[in-house]
């Protein structure tokens, strides 16, 4: 006797909850090879993005105010839970068209990256900060702080590790994120959201809005309460350019302006630095 499987509804991830898009719209997601319909993903709306930015802003003070040790442990917890859910994540990638070996390697790479960035939490401030030898009786130091709410457009492929590569450095630095996952292969990212939800990541720190990048990019780039935007996953030159122009309205920091760059195999400090501000504090010295 065959059992009828229970299909998953793929929804958005906003403020620690999994709502459907308020717009009620969807778009079909197909397996990369062939025409097999995998799911009807949410086609996120401008209102969904706004809700996600509100959730991210609300979570910012708490997340950036946690100790670095605590943030590091939560990233490590994401790695732990990803490991136990690795078969499911692999399955998502395979359904989207990856070979068995590629899917396994991509999930493993994602887990390695969470571990890598978890370890950076209480180290990057020591590498990037400084005590400055000013010519006067002052104690002067510079510390990195998170930029704020960061918008991320993840690359189309690799759908999972490409998202993790941008997400992990942004949140380890204390930022909160509104991310748009791969448009053609969004399902692994949405399953990853279930990992976040069970990894002590506070609601609102990571928000995922699936949908059409062509419509989401200008809305996120022009949102006045987003402080920085990563356009690395936007393939169309004209869209990226328009987004850069829109970003100027509140002087957003723009990364990935040159478009998809691929993974050079060097996850690094410099990806964390992309979403940091340097604060310098002066105080007189005397008795």
């Amino acid at each position, binding site marked *: 006797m065959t059992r009828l499987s229970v299909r998953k509804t793929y929804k958005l991830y906003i403020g620690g909850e999994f709502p459907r898009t308020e717009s009620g719209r969807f778009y079909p997601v197909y397996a990369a090879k062939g025409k097999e319909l995998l799911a009807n993903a949410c086609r996120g709306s401008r209102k969904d993005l706004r809700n996600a930015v509100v959730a991210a802003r609300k979570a910012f003070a708490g997340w950036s105010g946690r100790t670095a040790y605590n943030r590091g442990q939560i990233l490590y917890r994401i790695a732990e839970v990803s490991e136990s859910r690795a078969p499911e994540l692999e399955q998502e990638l395979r359904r989207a068209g990856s070979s068995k070996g590629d899917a396994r390697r991509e999930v493993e790479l994602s887990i390695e990256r969470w571990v890598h960035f978890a370890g950076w939490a209480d180290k990057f401030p020591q590498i990037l900060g400084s005590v400055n030898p000013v*010519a006067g009786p002052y104690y002067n130091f510079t510390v990195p702080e998170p930029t704020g709410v960061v918008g991320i457009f993840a690359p189309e492929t690799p759908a999972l590790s490409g998202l993790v590569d941008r997400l992990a450095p942004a949140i380890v630095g204390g930022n909160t994120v509104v991310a748009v996952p791969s448009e053609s292969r969004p399902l692994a990212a949405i399953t990853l959201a279930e990992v976040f939800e069970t990894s002590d990541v506070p609601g609102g720190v990571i928000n995922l809005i699936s949908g059409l990048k062509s419509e989401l990019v200008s809305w996120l780039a022009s949102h006045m309460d987003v402080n920085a935007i990563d356009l690395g996953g936007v393939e169309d030159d004209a869209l990226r350019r328009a987004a*850069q122009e829109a970003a100027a*309205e509140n002087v957003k920091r723009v990364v990935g302006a040159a478009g998809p760059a691929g993974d050079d195999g060097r996850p690094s400090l410099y990806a964390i630095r992309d979403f940091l501000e340097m*604060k310098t504090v002066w105080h007189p010295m005397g008795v």
Partner: protein
Amino acid sequence: MTEEIHDPRGALERLKPGPAAPMPVSWEYSPSRESTDHVRFRSRYDLFIGGKFVAPLSKRWFPTINPATEEVLAEIAEADEADVDAAVREARRAYEKVWSKMRPAERAKYIFRIARLIQEKSRALAVAETLNGGKPIKESRDIDVPLAAAHFFYYAGWADKLDYAFPLRKASPLGVAGQIIPWNFPLLMAAWKIAPALAAGNTVVLKPAETTPITSLMLAEIIQEADLPPGVVNILTGAGATGAALVRHPDVDKIAFTGSTEVGKRIQRATAGSRKHLTLELGGKAANIVFEDAPIDQAVEGIVNGIYFNQGHVCCAGSRLFVQESVVEPVIRKLRARIGTLRLGDPLDKNTDIGAINSRQQLDKIRELVDSGVTEGAEMFQSSCPIPSRGYWFPPTFFTNVAQSSRIAQEEIFGPVLSVLTFRTPEEALERANNTPYGLSAGVWTEKGSRILKIAQKLRAGVVWANTYNKFDPSSPFGGYKESGFGREGGMHGLEPYVHLD
């Protein structure tokens, strides 16, 4: 506890009264004017391109004046698109053929030379800065010029040490940097821009502000004297159109801009899609927060320095004063008294505290915003100091009973005008201090160490001065959060905007 005053030349120390002097009948100062006979301007300045002063292809010149007297000091070339192109070509040639190939230690020595020449010519540069910009000579002499020299000296030493600044990456220069600077600290801003760019191996096309070109052109003469290879630094004078042409030029790899947020946004839009690297240092509306346990007399000095330094023409000026309610009365009383002692007048007089407003246009803007403050119902206090009949002047001013929503509490005035607001709790102070699109700087005054660190951490601003204000140093990174721009100038962090990392 007394606050240490940053006074490297001991100038303030010398001004302290001697012991047991008999009480004078009057506190009037005699004039103490810095002489200008040792400073000669050319009657006409051309563009500095490829190591030479060349007449502009535009065939246009404009007068530059002394804002304290409205007298013309010299004619200045106005660079047009063709001039910009010629300068960028020279910068590209110098980059490809000379500067990027030079041993870094040799680059360093050229930059050290510039620092030394600025020190040698510091008196002339200070006088020129004051004549052309209107700032008090004691500020150009003790702050602008020494800091400009220090900036070149600091970054010179980085040229052969870049590998230490970027672990596991190879730092290479970006190429040709187009740099646009404001009129409030003309020579110092030129130093902030040129020094790190050269240290990292870039070549430069610098555009000084329309109203204050002279010290940049004197710097061009210094660069010639230092035998810097032709084309490594090019200086183009002109107005907004010249800057716009530089931003648009397709062979410029990097734009660095210091100026208003409005123009900064325009530049960010203009460089979209171009792959030009960009850093912006824009406006501010800094909160200066005084808690009830602050040393009030020192705080009042800090408030005065925060807003009236350089006539308030300072992007990081402490223009929003937040005073805890329990100490509003003594702070306001002492502030009034202190403002009454500020001496406004001849910028060349060594006793002058408040110089001339930089331009007619800026004076109009200050007046308009001050009028709006009165119209919106704030209470104005203004120094009754005499105002010279010629030139552009505005007396030190502050407003009380200022609503958070009023224009004088929201908009950057860029003049000697302070808005005083009050608060009850630290949480309220932080909330309101951060309630602005800007985030360049902030001040906090309290004797409580733990409070300093917490407030400094929670303020969304790039520079926080605790129990001091408006201090600058080449080793200290400077730059904004939010709409005050991105990128840092100063310190190791100031190298990043000028390198590509492989």
